[in-house]
Every structure is written in structure tokens, then in C-alpha cells.
């Protein structure tokens, strides 16, 4: 009975949405979206591109034009990490028993891979304003390298305390850079460094700096979440 009710509601919703969207002239047909009438055309305007200085326009939007959204997004991740730690952690914790014993090769190999993955993640973060990637995937890759260490060694625990400090410092620096914009320029999060030439590594003003902070913050937060999921109370 309840299944039928749910089925009916979702089918009605789906049909309603598809019909309404196909019958609306203002809604662009798939594959024919034109950015001429949208605000995006101004993001691709040559003056604006040179002002921001980032070759990757998506990065320019994420960190530049809509940097405030990104601050909010980092906050969302921060508060979820906080919540996960709040619900799952207790004063004394030990690793969950994974039922397999890692051998020597696995332990050593994972340490080597850890270094390689870490370097890759920094490359991705540093080139966020030139190539696809940036702080979010980079940070997630940092976290997955930590995850690798956790999986390869059943005794391993990273230093959660230092992650918390890294997380707090990176987040605070993000806000402080925003406030510096208020002091050195006129507005919050405004770029107060030279924009440089589009396409060079040292360009785009504060964008790479903010992306590095985001990467560190995302990495430490997700690593903290992973640690919380892989540990449990001592007594259990």
C-alpha cells in the first residue's frame, strides 16, 4: 500500500516535471543552451578573464566570483566532519578489526604509493587555476592517500589532533584572507594580489592560495571522517 503511494507520487512528480520543462519555451532544449543571455557570457568576457587571471574559468567562478559559496561549502564539510566526530568518537578509541593481516609487501608498498599519491594531489591543487582539478579533488586525493595507509596497516592511526589543528588553521586563514581583502582592497574576499598572465603558474592572485587552503582543509576533514569510521570505542 505504502509502496504504491510512493510509486504514484514519484511518477506524478516525474511526469509533471518532464511535461512542464518540455512545454516551456524559455527552458533551453538539451544541447542547445546558449550562454549569450546568461551571466556566464560575462565570465568569458576578455576584460573579466584578464582581471581574474585564471585560465580555468570554472576555477575562476568557484574561487573568484562565487568564492563566498566556496567558503560556505567548506563550512558544510567542516560541520559534517565535526558532527561525525561528535557522534562516533569517544575518549578512548581503537581500530576496527578488519579480519585480514597485511603482509610486509603491502605495508612497504603502501608507504611508497602514499608519497606518490600525495605529490599528485599537490600537483592537482597547485594547477587548479590552469587545468581541471583544484582544491576539492586534490583534498579528496590527500584523504584517499591517508585511507590507503589505514587499509594497508591494521594498527595504523594518524594523528587526529594535528588534523584538527590543520583544519582549523586552514579554515581560519580562508576567512582571514577574505578579511584582508576588506582591509587592503574594499570588499570581502577581493583579490589584493596582482592577477598576472593567464596560463602561467604564478597567476590569478589569491586563487591558488585559497585553493591550497581548501585542499588542506578538505583533505584533513575527510581524513578525520575516515578515521572516525574506522575506529570504535575501546570497550566494545
Amino acid at each position, binding site marked *: 500500500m505504502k509502496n504504491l503511494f510512493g510509486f504514484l507520487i514519484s511518477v506524478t512528480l516525474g511526469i509533471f516535471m518532464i511535461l512542464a520543462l518540455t512545454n516551456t519555451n524559455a527552458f533551453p532544449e538539451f544541447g542547445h543552451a546558449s550562454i549569450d543571455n546568461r551571466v556566464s557570457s560575462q565570465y568569458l568576457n576578455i576584460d573579466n578573464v584578464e582581471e581574474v587571471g585564471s585560465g580555468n574559468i570554472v576555477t575562476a567562478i568557484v574561487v573568484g566570483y562565487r568564492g563566498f559559496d566556496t567558503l560556505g561549502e567548506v563550512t558544510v564539510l567542516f560541520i559534517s566532519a565535526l558532527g561525525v566526530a561528535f557522534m562516533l568518537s569517544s575518549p578512548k578509541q581503537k581500530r576496527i578489526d578488519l579480519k585480514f593481516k597485511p603482509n610486509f609487501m603491502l605495508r612497504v608498498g603502501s608507504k611508497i604509493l602514499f608519497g606518490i599519491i600525495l605529490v599528485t594531489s599537490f600537483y592537482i591543487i597547485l594547477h587548479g587555476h590552469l587545468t581541471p582539478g583544484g582544491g576539492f579533488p586534490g583534498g579528496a586525493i590527500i584523504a584517499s592517500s591517508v585511507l590507503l595507509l589505514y587499509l594497508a596497516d591494521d594498527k595504523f592511526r594518524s594523528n587526529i589532533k594535528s588534523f584538527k589543528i590543520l583544519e582549523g588553521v586552514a579554515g581560519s586563514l580562508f576567512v582571514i584572507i577574505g578579511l584582508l581583502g576588506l582591509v587592503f582592497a574594499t570588499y570581502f574576499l577581493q583579490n589584493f594580489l596582482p592577477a598576472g598572465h593567464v596560463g602561467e603558474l604564478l597567476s590569478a592572485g589569491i586563487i591558488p592560495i585559497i585553493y591550497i587552503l581548501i585542499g588542506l582543509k578538505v583533505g584533513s576533514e575527510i581524513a578525520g571522517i575516515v578515521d572516525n*569510521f574506522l575506529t570504535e570505542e575501546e570497550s566494545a
Partner: protein
Amino acid sequence: MTFFDIISIAVGAFLLIIAFLAINSKKIINSVLFLSALSMLAVVSFVLMKAPDVAITEAVIGSGLVTALFVFTLLSINRRDAK
């Protein structure tokens, strides 16, 4: 019918099939794996629609870390049951 159309129809159909399986499969671990596959297909569709940034992020976060979190949750539960 262009090459893009064929691929997009195939991806769309796969998306729906796998979503259906993920919702209706009996074992939870299967649902989790189907979710991971769904995420990977979403990456394909992002690449098709010229969104490399999103594709990278979804590949790392969506199909990597989220799946890991699901699996860890299930692992800790199973272990407690075994005791």
C-alpha cells in the same frame, strides 16, 4: 544520429538500469556497489558534457570516498554481529 547521441542514449539507459538495481537489490552491499557504478557512469556523462572539473571531483569523491564510507559502516556492523 550522431556518435554523441548513441553514446548518450547508452549512458542514460545504463544510468537508469543501475539506479533501479541499486534501489531494489536485496543485499545492502550490492546496493552500495551499484551506487559506486552509478557514480562512475555519472563521471562518464560529465565528461560527455564537457565538464572535466566536475568529472574529476565526482570520480574521487563520489565513487571513491563515499563508497569507502558506506563499506566501512557495513564492516563495523557485520563484525559486531559476528560476536
